[in-house]
């Protein structure tokens, strides 16, 4: 009896605590629907009396800040980066686990030791490299800076070393070359972990703020996180429009999260390091 009572008390307390995490997001959603003069009104109107959704929506999506472009840019950069990262990391992991040759352990050790180098410690040379390559102010700069991921190589290596060599040997006996073994045997076997890695990489790239901030200049090329700063500067103190922009930035992530909750949570729990 006593445990049942304490269990419900704990659940209620936890529920109250979880409200601290939910209310700012609910406030954002409700403000995105409001007239500016109602946003900061107190007590808070959780369900707005007067709806100004269309105006806010139009101001964000068809207004003077090209939010539509930011969306497209983010989508483009995140998808291309994710695909290239998957290819590079899968290839490396395959070579490190399933091909035997001298030097592969050395390469693996080098990767492990590079993992502790913080990105920010090499920010200045990265910037110079991008300038020398003539890629400053292009999406290619951001893609180039985020497509190498030792971390994902490491995760994939872990997964592949659990895959029995017999599958691959069977393919080779049938006369398949290395490329075919890789593409038609290894990649399909890795599908679950690849899906997880792809989702996580997509979310990180979508949310990346630092690389676009440093490598982009033209507003037309901005991705969403950087684009949000323009709303702050352009619509000073128009919080309804700001919240509409914030909501628009988060919605695709929420959709991914709701549809693929398990993969997202497992992917992070896999031993995740952010960024």
């Amino acid at each position, binding site marked *: 009896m006593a445990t049942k009572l304490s269990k419900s008390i704990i659940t209620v307390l936890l529920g109250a605590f979880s409200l601290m995490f939910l209310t700012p997001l609910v406030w954002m959603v409700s403000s995105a629907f409001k007239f500016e003069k109602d946003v900061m009104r107190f007590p808070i109107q959780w369900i707005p009396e007067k709806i100004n959704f269309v105006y806010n929506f139009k101001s964000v999506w068809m207004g003077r800040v090209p939010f539509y472009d930011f969306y497209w840019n983010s989508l483009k950069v995140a998808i291309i980066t994710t695909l290239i990262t998957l290819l590079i990391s899968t290839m490396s992991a395959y070579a490190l686990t399933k091909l035997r040759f001298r030097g592969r352990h050395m390469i693996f050790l080098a990767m492990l030791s590079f993992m502790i180098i*913080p990105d920010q410690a090499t920010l200045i040379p990265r910037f110079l490299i991008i300038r020398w390559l003539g890629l400053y102010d292009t999406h290619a700069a951001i893609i180039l800076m985020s497509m190498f991921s030792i971390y994902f190589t490491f995760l994939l290596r872990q997964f592949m070393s659990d895959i029995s060599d017999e599958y691959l040997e069977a393919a080779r006996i049938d006369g398949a070359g290395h490329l075919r073994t890789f593409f038609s045997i290894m990649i399909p076997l890795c599908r679950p972990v690849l899906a997880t890695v792809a989702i996580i990489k997509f979310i990180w790239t979508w949310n990346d703020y630092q690389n676009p901030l440093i490598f982009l200049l033209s507003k037309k090329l901005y991705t969403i996180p950087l684009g949000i700063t323009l709303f702050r500067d352009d619509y000073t103190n128009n919080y309804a429009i700001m*919240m509409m922009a914030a909501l628009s930035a988060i919605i695709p992530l929420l959709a991914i999260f709701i549809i693929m909750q398990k993969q997202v949570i497992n992917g992070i729990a896999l031993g995740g390091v952010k960024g």
Partner: protein
Amino acid sequence: MEVVKQTAGASHAAEAKKKFWTPSRREALVGWLFLIPEIVGMLLLNVFALGFSLYLSFSKWDMLSGLPGIEWIGLGNYKELFHDPAILEALKNNLLYTVMTVPIPIAIALVLAVVINNSGFLKSYFKVVFFIPYISSIIAIAAVWSALLHPSLGPVNQLLMQLGIDAPPKWLVDPKTSLLSIAIIGTWASLGYTIIIYTAGLTNISNEIYEASEIDGASPLKKFFRITVPLLRPTTFFLAITMLIGSFKVFDIISYLTEGGPNNSSTVLVYRIYEEGFRNYDMGYASAISWLLFAIIGIITAATWKLGKD
């Protein structure tokens, strides 16, 4: 295992010519080809970048003067570091931020994870609620919080005033509370991650241990401190290392919310790198700060590693 010899001996030349591409040589070639993209990336973005930034850290260079403009000044930048009030402020803020965003969230998340784990049908609801801020764009989150924490109009302060607090904190715009506000927002945004990692750790503890202790009459509190906490040690260790490192890399929310201000009250090392490098074009000095950051992270990693091993 066959060992591949990269250099074919001259005496075997005639023989080797015929059968140079033995299966193991072919495998080695394919292996290196598969690794080429990753190796090129590592050489460029790690080896070269680290070496070049080390060299720059001993130089004075504004970038606009081109490579010949790099002027060797020895330890000059490093000497300046320790007399630069902004750097000392950044170091202090980094330490404070770490204290605020590592031990406290770890403790909260541990308790929450245990409670959530026992909360039956609401389990997935709680997991999702705490996790949404983590996957959301941190800049969007920062935009929401900057409105919520608006000093005079924001809902947070209006609520505080309603509760009878006449002069609520000015949060992000007051030097006394700016770093604290950022720490609160940062913790709010990342607590879900910590909870998820702990929940994953909890599933590895077998129920039998708890059942055995229940037979011995252990109270829930005793179970928590005698079983859960010690058995989650590896998870706590992992979280401590990643969160410590992460806290020293904080940049995005500071750049968006306060730009290190007011009066450098929320500046941190990465923000100094950004400002010196990309605003003042003092590439040498920015590189020296980068190496200071790298050294600090290296020391922390090594120290935590050693502590965790014992």
